[in-house]
């Protein structure tokens, strides 16, 4: 028992020391990368990122670079800024939406040192979790002292709550869609009538005007 424990423990420890948030991409020095999250209201979003700088000397990415910061800006569906903050090379940002809609999460590097050392390449590991994925169940179980079954029920409740919120948001969007379609319908109707009237009016005016003109010229 005692001999078996350190083995996987040590392996696990090394894995834990350099956490990797799945997906990564490359970003230029002053480049701004934006991601869109279309979410219902009162939904929590947690974003975690980790940056690595390209080292020209070793020809690889450095594991961690102090002094390199990322600026995170989050706008809601009305383009109002709800978060605009500077974070370090490893950061974690959280926000809760108060209006439903497409929220924009933008990241850009604020560092000017990059061009000097790196040739302008930065690797960003990103992980964005929305809604019920933000819940940390082992932590909740420990805090509220829940049994396994209670924790599973809690997870199901969170999922169903998320589905319900999404359905409400769907209703709101469907209404907007319907309003847009009805506005288009009205516009097509009224503008067609208006154009026909303009056509008839100008036709009649043209004929009358030309007739009086030719009569005045004694041609008719």
């Amino acid at each position, binding site marked *: *028992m*005692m001999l078996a*424990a350190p083995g*996987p*423990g040590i*392996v*696990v*420890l090394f*894995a*834990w020391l350099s*956490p*990797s*948030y*799945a*997906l*990564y*991409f*490359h970003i230029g020095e002053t480049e701004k*990368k*934006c*991601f*869109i999250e*279309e979410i219902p209201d009162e939904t929590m979003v947690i974003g975690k990122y980790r940056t690595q700088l390209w080292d020209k000397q070793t020809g690889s990415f450095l594991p961690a670079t102090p002094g390199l910061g990322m600026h995170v800006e989050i706008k809601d569906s009305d383009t109002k800024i709800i978060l605009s903050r500077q974070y370090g090379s490893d950061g974690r940002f959280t926000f809760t939406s108060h209006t439903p809609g497409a929220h924009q999460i933008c990241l850009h590097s604020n560092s000017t040192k990059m061009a000097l050392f790196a040739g302008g390449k930065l690797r960003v590991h*990103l*992980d*964005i979790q*929305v809604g019920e994925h933000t819940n940390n169940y*082992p932590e909740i*179980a420990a805090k509220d002292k829940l049994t*396994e*079954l209670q924790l*599973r*029920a809690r*997870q*199901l409740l969170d*999922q169903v709550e998320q*589905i319900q919120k*999404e359905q409400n948001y*769907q209703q709101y*969007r*469907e209404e*907007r*869609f319907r309003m*847009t*379609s009805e*506005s*288009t319908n009205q*516009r*097509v109707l009224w*503008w067609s009538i*208006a*154009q026909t009237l303009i056509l008839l009016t*100008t*036709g009649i005016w*043209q004929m009358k*005007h*030309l007739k009086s*003109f030719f009569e005045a*010229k004694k*041609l008719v």
Partner: protein
Amino acid sequence: MCSYHGTIRVLVQVLWAHLLCGWAFGSELTFELPDNAKQCFYEDIIIGTKCTLEFQVVTGGHYDVDCRLEDTDGTVLYKEMKKQYDSFTFTAAKNGTYKFCFSNEFSTFTHKTVYFDFQVGEDPPLFPNENRVTALTQMESACVSIHEALKSVIDYQTHFRLREAQGRSRAEDLNTRVAFWSIGEAFILLVVSISQVVLLRSFFSDRKTTTTRVGS
């Protein structure tokens, strides 16, 4: 001595949970792809992991994008041009960094918004069930199947939301286009009819001696 064993075991369980969380991931992102641009994403995958890449174009142009998935050695696993929506499942045959790219290089002036969902492995279990030797009770297995069903409901909801966003963006485009062109056409109509009359008048006003032309 027993409590020491116990704490070591709990520590290993917690660290194991972190390890599992490190290796089983799902990334779901929506990003904007400008015209003539290419965006690539990379992920380190272990051999034998079952992965799924799903993408959909939400707004922009003809709602199509080029997608390309390459493995560690650059072998192309999936390549499709001008696709609106697709889903591709594969099992990682090699350890290393897999790369997938979305390209809008064929488009000259339309920005596209692309959604993708890259699932790597299974979701981490709710508990670090290292000592799970007994089968799940009926209640627990019912909970697990409800959880899976709800996951697929959420997945369908996401796809529905994307299709609705697409439809709505087309409807809003149509609305502005109808307004713009209606006003434009009414204006052109007025301008053309007035200038027709003015032009016709100009033919006759300077030549008072061409009455014979009209008579013949």
